[in-house]
């Protein structure tokens, strides 16, 4: 009986480890290659760089993101640019100060809104312009050895407009409310 229990426990442990391993690698692949349920958070794999001071009310950014194809990676990078403004904040650069996130933790009541917002043809597209010349090129277009692409694109995010629209919807507090 004890021998059977040990065997059963061993099987369970092995199955658990196997499942955990599979889940971890699947998660890793997912976060690297595709958007996870339209949610963007700090764990999502993208890189943002502030390239300079944008024209009035905008942010000039370079964003690196992954995708199964170049076009998918470009689309992902555009989402990431807007997502960085909302959730993560923008890093400082030689020419520009850091910008805090508009709304790092929007709360569960906004989950559906942001899922729609970051759909492929969602509203996020209203806040981002591509400033790259054509498709990402040279060292901004990296083919991954395991499949897929990592691309770096230059974008202009209409930051003030994004903030105002978020304020209007009540997702974030208006600047006036602080005073």
């Amino acid at each position, binding site marked *: 009986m004890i021998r059977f229990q040990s065997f059963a426990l061993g099987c369970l442990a092995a199955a658990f480890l196997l499942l955990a391993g599979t889940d971890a690698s699947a998660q890793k692949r997912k976060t690297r290659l595709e958007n996870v349920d339209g949610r963007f958070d700090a764990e999502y794999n993208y890189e943002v760089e502030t*390239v*300079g*001071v*944008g*024209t*009035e009310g*905008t942010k*000039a950014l370079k964003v690196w993101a992954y995708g199964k194809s*170049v076009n998918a990676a470009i689309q992902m990078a555009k989402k990431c640019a807007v997502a960085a403004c909302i959730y993560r904040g923008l890093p400082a650069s030689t020419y520009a100060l850091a910008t805090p996130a508009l709304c790092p933790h929007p709360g569960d009541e906004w989950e559906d809104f942001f899922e729609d917002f970051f759909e492929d043809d969602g509203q996020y597209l209203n806040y981002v*312009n591509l*400033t*790259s*010349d*054509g*498709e*990402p*090129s*040279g*060292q*901004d*277009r*990296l*083919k*991954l*050895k*395991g499949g897929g692409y*990592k691309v770096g694109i*230059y974008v*202009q995010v209409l930051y003030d407009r994004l903030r105002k629209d978020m304020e209007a919807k009540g997702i974030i507090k208006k600047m006036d409310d602080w005073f």
Partner: protein
Amino acid sequence: MKKFLFLILALGCFLPAGAQSVNANYDRNALTVIAVHHNDRYDAMSDAYLKAYFPGGEKFDNNMVDTRSIAPGYSRFQKRDDNDITTYIRTYSAEVESQVKKANVAGQVVAKWFNRSASGMMDLNVINKRADYNATDQTYNIAAAQALGEYLLHGDGVKLVDNSYILVVDHSVPERSEGRDSNGRLNDVTYSTQAIGYLYKLQFGDKQRQAVYDQWIYPEDPAATQNAKKAAFDKIVFPFYLVKTVEATSSASINPQSRDADESQALQRAVMGSSLAVIDKLEKQLEAWKVKTTIYKTHPILSKVGTKEGIKNLSRFEVLEYLLDEEGNVSTRRKGYVRATTVANNTSASKGNSATSQFYQIAGTKLEPGMLLKEKKSANMDAKALYYGGATKGFGAEVDMLSGMSNGGSCSHFRFSGTLFPFKSIGDYAEITAIDIRLGYGYGIRPFRQLELIPGASVLCDYLTPRTSGGSESEQTFMKKSAWCLEPGVDMNLTIFYPVKINAGAFYSLPVLKGVDWSDCNEALKATGQGRTGFTWRAGLVFEF
């Protein structure tokens, strides 16, 4: 058969591996060219062309300064072979460098960038203009999306000062050779010169930049301050270092019988040619001088380069794709080769909508927008090693000069070939040798990139002689032993492993003029079924370079 064809086509997509990482950045370079004087009568020849002509062309910013020559004080060299030239360079390079230093060429180059006037006043006009000219649509768009706009591009201008090169060219004593016709009349004069190029690069970093700004003269500065700053600037030692030394030879001919014959023109052309050949060699060897751009669009292949980068029809580019491995290492993989077909005139500052040049893919697999194009200098030639079959069997070599590639990949082939046909004991003849010299033209058509069909025709001189004949040949005896033929036919080049191709062709030789001795020999050959006219085929290997 289908499998064989598929295999050949698949092979045609293969390219020699290239796995090192390549920096995709390319900025314009500025060039200063200086001649070495030896206080002899040939000094004038190097001066003359440097006064009239900037050898850097459109590809380089013109950084010619007041100093056009240096005189190290040793005699002009005679043309030498490779070993001798290496020893010569080793012996005199330190002396050349010290003369460049003594003439403060580096200081003059920096002054040129900062548009320094005789009074020592400087401005940023040249730098800003060159920065605008260097900008790509990508950098323009990025700048335009920022608050400072196009002014941001000017910030990059000062970095361009570091891309300044000084080329010192030392020409050999020109060699003159003469050619005479059968009446002993002079009908050809050829000048040949060898040139050694010492290439130096200016080092212009933060320290040097600060040194310039420290001596910046403002209009409101008192006269004494202005004079002091001017004197201080003149004393700044701008560092430079030797990048590479190369040598190249060039020759030019003239017919003294022609009405406007001027030997000095041939000499000038030879001198200019050797200097340009030095620059050409450096372009092949220096990574920073290789134009790099990217594919803007495919179908057709377009890229935003043109005359500004010195691109010409047939300019060859290697296509590379960047790869990222799981450890985060970036490398490049070769995807193919393209040649420029329609070259855009882009000699104006970018405004985000620059003209595009069109390219034709000559080898490799599917290309995509964004892939890197890296200049791979080419002589635009095919060299062939050929076996001739059919009635007569022989071996030959052919060189094709490629010219004028169309958007569909078609191009002209100007051909020159020599073939040897050895025969053994035929009729009354112990041994006969046939030597063919062909001069021809073909037009290459590409149904697809791996295959080139080249219909064309050649004028062929078929020279037949028994090996034992020996002795000197006069024009008369040569004509008796020769036949002049017209040879229409079709050739085919199939790329198997670029730049190596398989060649096969079929031709028909029609005699137009026949010498008496040639006819006799040919009759003997015909009797053994090896007549020199009629159908021949050939096959061999081609190397494109």
